[in-house]
């Protein structure tokens, strides 16, 4: 960075060094919490309290950890969908990918223990290829992703059922199903630590790391403004394609867990794409791209599942479930509406902020700081 250094050095005008962030940790947390991406955590917490008060045994660690385990697939799918949505696209093919993986597990592994590893490799390969097709269709063929993935959903679903005669042969061996069904036994407090929980945590950690990596930031920047990202040297088509691949691979992992949890069945994965999109949107991620946090998407999935459990415990007829779900997502999104920018305005702006700042000294706005700008002149 020699040029940079020399350039700035010789300018001799170096203004004050800007802080990386504004405010203390607590202030920032508070600011984060009022964004839709933060609010979903609060929503999930409220729902959790509601569920536990409706049924205290739900709050016991063993039950709780099982709940987390069973929510892992949808949370993982939601995180996969997040990559695509934040890059400005949609992935409607998730359900079909899950169904495909389930069928592969059932038909290819069967009772053959030795095929578990090759099957896993095959499933990930299939997931990657589907993501690749979605991504290339969207970026190179320039078909809107809504349409490409709708096409993949129909085509993949049809092809798999055509090739298998509509249904899988049967459940794969138990070793394979253990991934989604089993866990580490005899753990203190929890009794059992389900593998899906471990996988979920690993994927979350990996995802957070990914989103902080250059690639992750590039995904968001690309979702925000693809033209600018392209001119900044990002290969937009490949960035988006990788987002689609991450989505399909997440669906693959969800599929593997579901084979274990639920077993092989044609309706496993049905409607998962909309469930995942709902979770992502509930997590405050903006459709259209460029805004939102990965973990909020996962939190959205948990909030959704908690809501369903709450309805079960309240003995509300299960036919009303979609209605409640519909109302909730509309409310959440309406509330999120333009709340995103709230926490990120240049000045202190948590809504009830004191508008007291004297007009003469508007907080650290660009204008006040400008005085430094001209010092170099003359």
């Amino acid at each position: 960075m020699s040029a940079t250094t020399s350039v700035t050095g010789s300018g001799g005008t170096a203004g004050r060094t800007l802080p990386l962030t504004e405010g203390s940790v607590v202030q920032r947390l508070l600011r984060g919490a009022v964004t839709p991406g933060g609010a979903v955590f609060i929503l999930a917490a409220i729902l959790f309290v509601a569920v536990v008060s409706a049924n205290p045994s739900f709050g016991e660690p063993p039950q709780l950890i099982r709940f987390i385990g069973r929510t892992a697939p949808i949370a993982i799918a939601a995180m996969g969908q997040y990559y695509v949505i934040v890059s400005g696209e949609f992935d409607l093919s998730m359900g079909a990918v899950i169904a495909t993986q389930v069928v592969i597990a059932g038909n290819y592994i069967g009772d053959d223990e030795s095929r578990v590893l090759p099957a896993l490799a095959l499933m990930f390969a299939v997931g990657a290829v589907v993501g690749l097709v979605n991504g290339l269709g969207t970026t190179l063929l320039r078909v809107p992703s809504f349409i490409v993935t709708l096409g993949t959903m129909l085509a993949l679903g049809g092809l798999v059922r055509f090739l298998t005669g509509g249904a899988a042969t049967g459940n794969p061996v138990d070793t394979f199903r253990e991934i989604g069904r089993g866990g580490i036994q005899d753990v203190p407090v929890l009794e059992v630590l389900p593998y899906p929980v471990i996988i979920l945590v690993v994927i979350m950690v990996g995802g957070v790391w990914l989103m902080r990596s250059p690639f992750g930031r590039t995904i968001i920047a690309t979702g925000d403004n693809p033209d600018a990202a392209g001119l900044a040297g990002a290969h937009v088509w490949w960035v988006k394609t990788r987002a689609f691949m991450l989505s399909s691979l997440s669906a693959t992992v969800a599929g593997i867990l579901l084979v274990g949890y639920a077993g092989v069945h044609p309706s496993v994965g049905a409607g998962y794409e909309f469930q995942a999109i709902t979770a992502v949107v509930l997590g405050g991620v903006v459709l259209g791209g460029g805004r939102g946090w990965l973990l909020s998407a996962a939190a959205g999935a948990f909030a959704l599942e908690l809501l369903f459990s709450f309805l079960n415990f309240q003995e509300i007829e299960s036919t009303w479930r979609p209605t409640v779900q519909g109302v909730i997502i509309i409310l959440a999104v309406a509330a999120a509406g333009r709340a995103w920018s709230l926490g990120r305005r240049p000045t202190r702006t948590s809504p009830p902020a004191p508008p007291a700042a004297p007009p003469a000294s508007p907080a650290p706005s660009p204008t006040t700081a400008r005085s430094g700008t001209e010092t170099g002149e003359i």
Partner: protein
Amino acid sequence: MAEPTEVVRRRRAARAKGAKRLDSTALIYLVLVGVIAASVVLTAVEGRNFFSQGNVWAILTAMSVLGLIAIGQTLVILVGSLDLSVPYVVSLATVIAAGGMKGLDGNIAAATFNTLALCAAIGLVMGLLVSLLHVHGFIASLGIGLVVSGYLGTNYQGSHGAAAPDLRLLGRSGIGGWIPTAFVILLVCAVLVTLLLRYTRLGHHVYAIGGNRDVARMSGVRTALPVVSAHVLCSVLAGLAALLLLSRTGVGSPTIGSQGRYDLLSIAAVVLGGTLLAGGKGSVVGTIGGVAIFAVLDNVMGVMQVNPFLKDFVRGLVIVLAVAVYARRSVVRRPPRFGASRPVLHVPSPTGPSTKGESA
């Protein structure tokens, strides 16, 4: 002032030359003709006649319901929104209409009115969510669809009510055994909506808002009205489609809309018809073309007794490939100045501006 405009004029003239291309509607109908041609051959291979009375009737019938819904969907997409609730609105409309008619002709008017009014109300709610609360159309309609589906699931178990005999008669009637009445209704609606889009302020504003909501607002367009109208019309057209379905099935069914997968198929048909998914550009004529492509495709696959699973595969493939054909074309590129399409017309050296900028 003459001179600078001269330059402008020269550019205009130059550009017009290179830009002679097929417009997207023409392209869609070209694709349709191609699909029909292939179908004629394949149908003949099966020993059938594609243009036989029964086949034409079948295709036109298949177009009617999806067509009506797709027209509504076109409006909604043009205005920059999306409607995923149509299947549930359709289902709801059939049970309400059939419940209201109770199989009696005397109830037709009232039941039809109530049904369409209810659909309009649902569209209104969606439109208000989208326009006033700024909920993304995808979410608003998904949410409303879920709400309605919960209501249907809880309150209607199985088929409900009965269509009036006159309505059922309408379902079977047609012109000369070739053109079903349902298709005539579709055409009438298509013409009306096209007129609406071309010759009313509302229509102009629909395009404007879909093209750029802020620009429209700045220009004094009341953005809420067209958005709400588009959603209301879409739901009403879905209600109309439901009445057509009812005229064929004779009973209300709480799942008939989902059976037809009208949400995704109508969106696919609209996009297939050349309308931008992002809004602001497209036409009902194109949409009808898109619907026709689907109908012909389904028809020929039916005649060939294609495995039902494989049908979905083909549908998916066709959607992506067909849209790819014109999605690539509609990407705006500046017309190249040099090379093959370099404008031949070259106006002689332009005169400079009358007043030169003074040097500072």
